[in-house]
């Protein structure tokens, strides 16, 4: 059983080492691709195991929980690992067309896979301190990816990204210290039991707030998101796509995990904060996007506004709400990564990323227009695309609890999202190019173009499939939500007979 759990962490690490050794030639690129495919296979096997057995757990080096490090996969973890593998593969394929050998020689593929290992590790671990370690693995690799190549804008963005993320990590670390002081354990399943026995529950809530701030910065929720729009438009498109798809979602995942498994003693207080934070996140994100005029900056602000929907699902704390949050996570990762990839092709075809300085893309490449429209409308929540169902479930869950205002904000933000998407559409695709320059896809060499278009098409098809057959995915999300809300099975699987 442990092998299924360890493989999604081990495969990217092995790939990273091999890719680093082979970074000077084309072999590194192919190793990297092979590693991504292997990860996808391993994550599929893990998913199959989880569907068959429910929650599965493995004790590393056979140290019994709660003393050793436990890897656990419930439905949420398994889904997240699968989606990580999909995004990783899509980005690596895209990078075949985008990433230049100069960047590869600097160790691009090694950093990329080290980051993926960190992400998968964070999704699979059942130990709070181990979660911190995975966060760091992911962070330090992402620092490298952000500044690789080292142009001025990247360094500038790197400073802000590094500074704020390090602060959040330290909040998280202090939280771990205090939680350990209160309970004497670090295993999440054991914490679920131990936290209930702490006499001074107010202290637990204080520690919960440290965790909320730590994860909140990572997830880029209001008012802790400022590092994100400062950084995500500067690196290469492959890097910003994988950042946009995965990194903030690790924060959301950690929030979902800790605030359903450990910090549930005072839901009326903690989740009420999350609720209003979510509403503010949705609104500020979408309004920030409306003020921007650069392709990737608009998309970056939309990440923030969409994060609000996911944390809203958690804040509602009902089976339907959490199911909506999980569904939203999956939908969002696919759609958002795809939009950044499209932005890359648009930039290469039209010569710039500033909306005022490009245009005429629809005339030049109607197919690219279609590929933009699918994820863009999905993001805004048009039926029958995946975003519609994601929003539908979250809004329905908030209406069921009679949070009229929150539901109103969620719908309004959907409307404003269309505004931003039409802005990109009108400026980049419809209006003629301001400099009289003919944008052409044929400006990109075919050897570069096809690896770039292939993942875009694949991700767009996935969005359509989720949109057309939502039952399967909603059911999966509901299973995940039920497991989150009732962690008995999770705790018993991890602790075995020790569970009281």
């Amino acid at each position: 059983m442990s092998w299924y759990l360890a493989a999604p962490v081990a495969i990217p690490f092995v790939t990273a080492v091999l890719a680093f050794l082979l970074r000077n030639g084309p072999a590194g690129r192919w190793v990297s691709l092979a590693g991504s495919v292997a990860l996808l296979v391993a994550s599929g096997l893990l998913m199959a195991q989880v569907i068959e057995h429910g929650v599965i757990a493995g004790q590393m080096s056979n140290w019994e929980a709660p003393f050793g490090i436990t890897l656990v996969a419930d439905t949420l973890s398994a889904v997240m690992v699968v989606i990580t593998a999909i995004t990783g593969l899509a980005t690596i394929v895209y990078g075949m067309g985008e990433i230049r050998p100069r960047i590869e020689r600097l160790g691009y593929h090694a950093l990329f896979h080290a980051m993926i290992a960190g992400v998968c590790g964070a999704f699979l671990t059942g130990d709070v301190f181990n979660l911190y370690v995975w966060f760091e693995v992911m962070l330090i690799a992402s620092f490298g990816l952000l500044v690789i190549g080292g142009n001025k804008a990247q360094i500038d963005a790197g400073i802000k990204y590094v500074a704020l993320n390090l602060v959040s990590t330290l909040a998280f670390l202090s939280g771990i210290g205090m939680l350990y002081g209160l309970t004497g354990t670090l295993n999440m399943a054991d914490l679920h039991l131990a936290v209930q026995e702490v006499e001074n529950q107010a202290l637990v809530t204080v520690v919960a707030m440290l965790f909320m701030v730590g994860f909140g910065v990572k997830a880029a929720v209001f008012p802790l998101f400022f590092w994100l729009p400062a950084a995500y438009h500067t690196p290469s498109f492959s890097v910003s796509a994988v950042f946009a798809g995965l990194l903030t979602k690790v924060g959301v995942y950690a929030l979902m995990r800790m605030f359903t498994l450990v910090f549930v003693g005072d839901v009326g207080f903690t989740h009420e904060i999350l609720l209003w934070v979510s509403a503010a996140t949705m609104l500020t994100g979408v309004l920030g996007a409306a003020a921007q005029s650069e392709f990737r900056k608009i998309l970056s602000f939309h990440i923030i506004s969409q994060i609000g929907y996911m944390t809203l699902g958690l804040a509602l704390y009902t089976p339907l709400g959490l199911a909506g949050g999980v569904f939203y996570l999956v939908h969002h990762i696919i759609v958002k990564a795809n939009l950044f990839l499209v932005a890359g092709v648009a930039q290469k075809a039209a010569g710039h990323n500033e909306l005022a300085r490009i245009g005429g893309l629809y005339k030049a490449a109607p197919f690219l227009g279609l590929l933009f429209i699918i994820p863009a409308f999905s993001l805004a929540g048009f039926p029958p695309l995946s975003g519609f169902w994601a929003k539908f479930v979250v809004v329905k869950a908030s209406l069921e609890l009679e949070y009229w205002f929150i539901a109103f904000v969620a719908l309004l933000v959907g409307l404003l999202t269309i505004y931003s998407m039409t802005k990109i559409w009108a400026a980049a695709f419809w209006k003629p190019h301001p400099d009289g320059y003919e944008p052409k896809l044929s400006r990109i060499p075919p050897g570069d173009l096809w690896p770039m278009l292939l993942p875009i098409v694949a991700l767009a098809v996935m969005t359509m499939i989720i949109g057309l057959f939502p039952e399967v995915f909603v059911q999966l999300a509901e299973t995940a939500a039920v497991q989150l809300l009732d962690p008995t099975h999770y705790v018993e699987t991890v602790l075995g007979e020790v569970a009281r």
Partner: protein
Amino acid sequence: MEIVVSILIGLLFATAVYLMLARNFLRFLFGLILLSNAANLVIFAAGRMTEGAPALIPYGALTPDGEIANALPQALVLTAIVIGFGLFAFALVLAFQAYRSLGTLDSDEMRVAEPREEIAGEARE
């Protein structure tokens, strides 16, 4: 003993926050390393302090005799120190690189990625 360490942690946190409020990125980094040491001490203190009882098991025995110090926080702190050291080294190199390519360490002056004059809808150079 815990009281003394707690006060020390409080002082470290306060100094760190003060330094991190500075606009100079280097001062911010010094604040950060103080903060990371404070966080490490939090873990150390949270594991309870036992004086003069090293976490050693006598040769041949399977369990220690009597009360010994908690070894887990030491392992955690060691891990955190190593990670913190790596991150700090990276941040320091980044600061140096920023100074070389941007010519400043004042975070208010770092506007390459987000130009000040940028107004929605207007082209920028």
